[in-house]
């Protein structure tokens, strides 16, 4: 390839990349780097007043902040519960859907409805369903099924306030996981199952010995993406409990948002969000490294 043609191609490449790249650098990359810088300052909201360099002061403060500790624990618990719930239920749903032919598209659509519905709407919906004393769920538990004598004030106590949030997280995510599992299941050749059946393997053995190992990359993918999603929980918490009662149901992002936009503590908010980013990036790399390897070498 001669030089002028090569230069010409580079020029074309930059024309193609330019509009997207400019927006990306200015409105995505710059804010992230700026947030990193802010996290080392006592950031002043007053124009003209200088920002005070505090080094890792904001991070130390976050480390000792009891609400950060509560938020971290809540975020981890939410992620653990919802990722596990979504993975198991989505896998079961996909295995069942893979078994049937008639009505598959119809049921897939139904299971996917929560996925496409706005977080704002479904959060308010779950808040409504879990109301007390006069909420739909309490009504069903007390008056229809007679499982409990008194309505449960779900949102009043930190111990139960996460139940609607967890339930929502799982309910909203099953359809997405199911669609992806289903696509992976359909790549497994039927002959493998037939051969295993001839060898006398039962359904459970076929699941453990054939299906799960073969869809391992999909499981890892879902695990990583769902985990990132779990750590990013925000809208449902803000709309269902808003971190209450007494900040006991804050998650990292809701606490960060409250610090930044209610208390205008921008530097501290930025530090908290980087705390979360560091956790997510580390865990993502660890999961990809340790879980994907065996599948690729075998």
């Amino acid at each position, binding site marked *: 390839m001669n030089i002028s043609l090569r230069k010409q191609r580079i020029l074309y490449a930059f024309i*193609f*990349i330019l509009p997207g790249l400019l927006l990306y650098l200015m409105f995505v990359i710059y804010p*992230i780097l700026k947030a990193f810088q802010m996290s080392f300052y006592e950031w002043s909201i007053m124009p003209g007043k200088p920002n005070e360099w505090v080094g890792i002061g904001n991070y130390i403060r976050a480390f000792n902040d009891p609400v950060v500790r509560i938020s971290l624990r809540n975020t981890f618990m939410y992620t653990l519960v919802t990722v596990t719930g979504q993975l198991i239920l989505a896998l079961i749903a996909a295995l069942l859907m893979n078994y049937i032919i008639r009505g598959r598209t119809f049921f897939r659509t139904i299971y996917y409805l929560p996925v496409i519905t*706005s977080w704002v709407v479904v959060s308010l919906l779950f808040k409504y369903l879990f109301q007390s004393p006069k909420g739909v769920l309490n009504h069903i538990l007390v008056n229809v099924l007679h499982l409990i004598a008194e309505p449960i004030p779900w949102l009043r106590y930190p111990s139960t306030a996460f139940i609607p949030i967890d339930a929502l997280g799982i309910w909203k995510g099953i359809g997405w996981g199911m669609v992806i599992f289903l696509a992976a299941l359909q790549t497994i050749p039927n002959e493998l199952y037939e051969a295993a059946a001839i060898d006398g393997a039962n359904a459970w053995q076929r699941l453990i010995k054939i299906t799960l190992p073969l869809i391992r990359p999909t499981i890892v993918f879902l695990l990583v993406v769902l985990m990132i999603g779990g750590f990013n929980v925000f809208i449902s918490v803000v709309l269902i409990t808003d971190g209450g009662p007494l900040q006991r149901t804050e998650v990292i992002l809701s606490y960060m*948002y409250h610090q930044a936009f209610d208390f205008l503590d921008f530097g501290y908010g930025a530090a908290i*969000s980087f705390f979360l*980013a560091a956790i997510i*990036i580390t865990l993502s790399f660890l999961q990809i490294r340790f879980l994907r390897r065996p599948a690729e070498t075998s």
Partner: protein
Amino acid sequence: MSRIFIAFDKYLKKIMVYLIIVLGAVGMVIPFLYMVSTSLKEHAYSIQFDPGLIPMNPSINNYQYAWQLSHFQIYFKNSLFIALTSVFFVVLFSSMMAYAFARFEFPGKEIIFFSILLVLMVPNMVGIIPQFLLAKTLGLRNSLWGLIIFYVAGSVPFNTFLLRGFFETLPRELEDAVLIDGGNYFTIFFRMVLPLSTPALATVSILSFLGFWDEYILALTFIDDAPKRTLPIAIALLHGQYGTDWGMVFAASLIAVIPVIVVFVSLQRYFVGGIVAGAVKG
């Protein structure tokens, strides 16, 4: 005898499977049914709490209140304008960028691409404080176009990543033929690559549209003026104002949700293909 038994066993198994699937489907749908039912109950009934799934005196008054008195016709228009405009620019810019990544060598290519992968892992909200200050400085707060710029910029990374994978599967031979015939890379891109990529572009468009239509956090942070609100913030605020009037809140919610469901059900094949393509690439 045993053959009949096996056939019967299979039949029974199938019934069991359908039974569980239907049960799951009921679980998926019931919350929505309660939403619809409550939206059809008028104020008084919501307060008295009529827990029945079928409203005693169904009425569409809540929808009329939401649409007119609560200005949801304005919010609907805002959301539609923002979502459609953003989709147009996201598709254009992401596909251009993805094409450059798929076909050209240029300085900085690896670094930019690696940064995109890294950004996909960083929570969107990490940049929100500087984004807020930036919008203020540039006069983009309280502006629909301001939201559009941030929406487009924010979804360029993921869609570039998705489309690059798709463009790489297109045959290069056709492109060389266009060059020999005296066309340039713009001819190739607009006349050949984009038309050949309709399914992928449809996927990107639909998924982005949904994302913009439902976006809450940036809109909440950037928009203060009531006439500039989008549906998600208007719904959340409605709940804040009329906490107990769930009928009205859900009527407004359904105004936002029903178009999405219609789009989803009619364009499903693009959706499912795209979701899976994104997953396999990831």
